[in-house]
């Protein structure tokens, strides 16, 4: 703790004088400066005028006079291990041990804006940009060393924090070369990168610096963060989404000490110095709201989607003559797949702290896009963007845009209204009920086989929520009657909607829906999980119709050796027996056993993932148990194999929960699945054995790892259930009721 406070003090002293921070920061800042880089011995004392321009090396990296370094990035680590991966890539180019590199992320006053976290782009875009800055700095350090040592650059190396002659002899530390100085160096996009054959840090399972603190309660979370004089607030959401606040009876909370009510039109909150008092007040306060019934209800949502008006159609693939090929096919198949609305369901509900002062404001948040959030909140709440500082802190994993941005808006609005620093903590019910949801998806597929059992025709029709320009609306501004954007973006919904196999005649069309229920956002691997579920389930249906083994059927349509390798490896690991599905001898007592396979190339252009599963289906209860999962994963260059495995394991387990259990339920007025009982996720007893093979390609660029292994999960599961029980599950989640209904329908 001693070193942490020493670091923070320096950081505070420095930031206090930085030109970019022109307003009082309060005593809160240093805690965060230290929070971001647990365990690093680097001192955080960057040069005086912190550059934020992503074209400048100074924006990303600072070298201190003791030879340590600090890395600055807008890309935040939401538990994925980006922090260590990015540090390793910088360390490799700079010849500095990872422990000597501090990490500051997602602070609009300190970090350049080179994009937010999302779409598995942290390594391939975020860390690759930092690596280029580090490579530029490496050349610069070598040049400076050459001058000082009076030797040509070609004879020098940069290693262990020193520029020194390659053949031995006296070197000079990088701290002495440039420590504490502004580099004023543009990032050189052509600066040569270290040869992967010489890597000593990248590719190693370097432990994540945050883990010891997370296991000993020393890692500071946003939820733990306080500022002096801070009050606790709770926002009271209406009982129906569009309800208006008619009246509030403040006498109903008379017996709770030291609470006040904040009301701005339909925005209702309670504020107290004691957190428990705020919670009690929020649950006790009597308020009357108007009726509102603007939702279609989640029962029969598929039907609703098919009846919804389409804004426009988009043709994604049109090749050959699919209509004629279908008519002429030896066998024709069609099937409809549907995916429900799902919640990010973060384990810790969203939180934010805001401190609005006369001369500027600060918001502490776990937003995945602190810069985007800063710009948006500044506009909505009328604070000049250069007077609003947004600072990221670690919190519960978010998996996309959960309620965090809304909590930030809540805190900012309340702090602005009462003139005091405010902490807003959402309840469990609010997080499940009000986080923007991952959208429902519906896909209709048609396919034709020729007499030899090859796919000769394929058609995908999909219905997606329309994209609307502008930012996603924040709840607080709508409730308070503050004008704002009502944009809609849910991530790339149309990737992986065509089969990755050679098909001569193909049509892929997206229908963008005019209206969809609930506020939506990006949820981990947006679109892709449902798309691969549909495409890879349907591929399995075609294989079964052709009487072919599912792996052999896929291999026949693949020519890319990397695709073939992941498919074969996943099959090998599970001990795949070549035969068509369903399993001719599935019965093990009351259980039916089977195995399934799915393959995807993520976003059709990135990671190759092959995944096989062994499951049992209980005939009596309809319960599916997943026993084993094998995954072969090729993401190009592997930066940190252990961090990568952790992400793949998490992707598989989380998505098993999404496929088996998760569906947002709502009536005409509100979301009704608002806790872990009504919205269950995967639990410990359901956890299968997970085996992973990493196919490392050190000379190729790295792809991200936070999402790709999610994509084939639901399909592999559905295919295994088909193998075991001979029934095809086309609607997620695969609840016991649905399994039983499917079993009954085959009898």
């Amino acid at each position: 703790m001693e070193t942490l406070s020493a670091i923070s003090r320096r950081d505070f002293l420095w930031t206090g004088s930085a030109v970019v921070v022109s307003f009082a920061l309060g005593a809160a800042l240093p805690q965060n400066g230290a929070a971001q880089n647990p365990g690093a011995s680097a001192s955080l004392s960057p040069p005086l005028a912190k550059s934020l321009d992503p074209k400048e090396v100074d924006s990303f990296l600072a070298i201190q006079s003791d030879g340590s370094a600090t890395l600055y990035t807008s890309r935040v680590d939401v538990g994925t291990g980006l922090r260590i991966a990015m540090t390793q890539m910088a360390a490799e180019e700079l010849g500095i041990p990872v422990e000597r590199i501090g990490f500051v992320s997602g602070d609009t006053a300190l970090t350049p804006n080179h994009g937010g976290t999302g779409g598995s782009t942290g390594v391939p875009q975020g860390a690759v940009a930092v690596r280029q800055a580090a490579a530029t700095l490496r050349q610069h350090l070598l040049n400076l060393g050459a001058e000082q040592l009076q030797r040509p650059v070609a004879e020098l190396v940069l290693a262990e924090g020193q520029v020194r002659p390659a053949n031995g002899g006296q070197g000079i530390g990088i701290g002495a070369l440039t420590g504490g100085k502004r580099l004023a160096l543009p990032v050189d996009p052509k600066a040569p990168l270290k040869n992967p054959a010489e890597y000593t840090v990248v590719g190693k399972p370097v432990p994540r610096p945050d883990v010891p603190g997370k296991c000993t309660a020393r890692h500071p979370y946003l939820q733990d963060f306080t500022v002096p004089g801070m009050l606790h607030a709770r926002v009271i959401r209406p009982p129906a989404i569009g309800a208006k606040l008619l009246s509030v009876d403040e006498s109903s909370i008379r017996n709770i000490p030291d609470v006040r009510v904040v009301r701005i039109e339909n925005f209702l909150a309670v504020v107290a110095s004691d957190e428990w008092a705020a919670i009690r007040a929020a649950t006790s306060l009597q308020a009357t709201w108007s009726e509102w019934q603007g939702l279609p209800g989640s029962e029969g949502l598929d039907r609703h989607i098919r009846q919804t008006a389409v804004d426009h159609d988009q043709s994604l693939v049109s090749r050959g003559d699919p209509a004629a090929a279908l008519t002429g096919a030896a066998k024709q198949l069609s099937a409809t797949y549907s995916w429900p609305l799902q919640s990010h369901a973060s384990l810790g509900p969203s939180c934010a702290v805001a401190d609005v002062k006369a001369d500027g404001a600060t918001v502490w948040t776990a937003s995945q896009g602190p810069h985007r959030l800063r710009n948006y909140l500044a506009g909505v709440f009328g604070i000049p963007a250069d007077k609003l500082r947004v600072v990221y802190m670690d919190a519960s994993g978010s998996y996309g845009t959960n309620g965090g941005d809304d909590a930030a808006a809540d805190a900012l609005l309340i702090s602005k209204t009462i003139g005091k620093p405010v902490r807003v903590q959402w309840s469990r019910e609010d997080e499940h009920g009000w986080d923007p949801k991952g959208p429902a998806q519906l896909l209709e597929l048609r396919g034709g086989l020729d007499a030899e059992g090859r796919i000769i025709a394929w058609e995908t029709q999909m219905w997606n929520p329309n994209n609307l320009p502008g930012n996603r609306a924040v709840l607080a501004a709508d409730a308070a009657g503050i004008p704002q954007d009502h944009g809609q973006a849910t991530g790339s919904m149309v990737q992986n909607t065509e089969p990755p196999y050679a098909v001569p005649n193909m049509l892929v069309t997206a229908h963008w829906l005019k209206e969809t229920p609930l506020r939506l956002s990006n949820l981990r691997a947006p679109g892709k999980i449902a798309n691969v579920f549909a495409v890879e389930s349907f591929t399995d249906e075609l294989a079964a119709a052709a009487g072919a083994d599912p792996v052999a059927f896929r291999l026949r349509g693949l020519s890319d050796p990397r695709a073939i390798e992941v498919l074969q490896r996943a099959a090998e690991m599970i001990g795949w027996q070549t035969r068509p599905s369903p399993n001719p001898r599935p019965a093990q007592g009351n259980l039916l056993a089977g195995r399934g396979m799915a393959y995807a190339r993520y976003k059709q252009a990135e990671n190759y993932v092959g995944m096989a599963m062994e499951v049992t289906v209980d005939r009596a209860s309809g319960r599916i148990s997943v026993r084993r999962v094998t995954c072969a994963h090729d993401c190009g260059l592997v930066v940190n194999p252990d961090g990568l495995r952790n992400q793949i394991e998490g992707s598989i387990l989380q998505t098993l929960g999404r496929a088996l259990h998760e569906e947002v339920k709502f009536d005409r007025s509100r979301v009704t699945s608002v806790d872990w009982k009504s919205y269950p996720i995967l639990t410990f007893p359901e956890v299968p054995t997970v085996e992973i093979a990493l196919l490392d390609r050190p000379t190729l660029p790295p792809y991200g790892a936070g999402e790709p292994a999610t994509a084939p999960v639901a399909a592999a599961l559905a295919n295994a259930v088909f193998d075991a029980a001979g029934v095809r599950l086309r609607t997620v989640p695969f609840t016991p009721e649905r399994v039983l209904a499917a079993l009954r329908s085959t009898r």
Partner: protein
Amino acid sequence: MAQYRLRVNGRAVRVESWDPAQPLLYVLRNSLGLHGPKFGCGLDQCGACTVLIDGKAARSCSVSVRQAAGRSITTLEGLGTPEKPDPIQAAFIAEEAAQCGYCTNGMIMAAKSLLNQTPNPTPEQVKRGLAGNLCRCGTYTRILSAVLRAAKA
């Protein structure tokens, strides 16, 4: 305001609360600055707030300060430090058994309680023993390895 005496991480403490029904979680986090236990649901459904009460895992969101009075409470802070971790913490660190780490407190405290009662659990016993602790990041397989590693230590 009423006062309550508790033993927290081996030390006798006195805390004040205006409401005897106030959950222990808020007393630990806000009055005592112990941030190990996390707020996840407040509904006794997720385990993020787990502490040990008299050596057994308990949900601090669902135990009132009045019920906690006179009892001996251990939080994650009370197990060990990064420099001197408890064997269960050391096992979680060795297995890198965290992603966001929001569930980690509950997982470690529930595992500690499990190992107190069942020092050599089978993998199935660990899974059942931690059935009430949720991890949204899906770190379950590593947590399982960590608990089995700690049992062997």
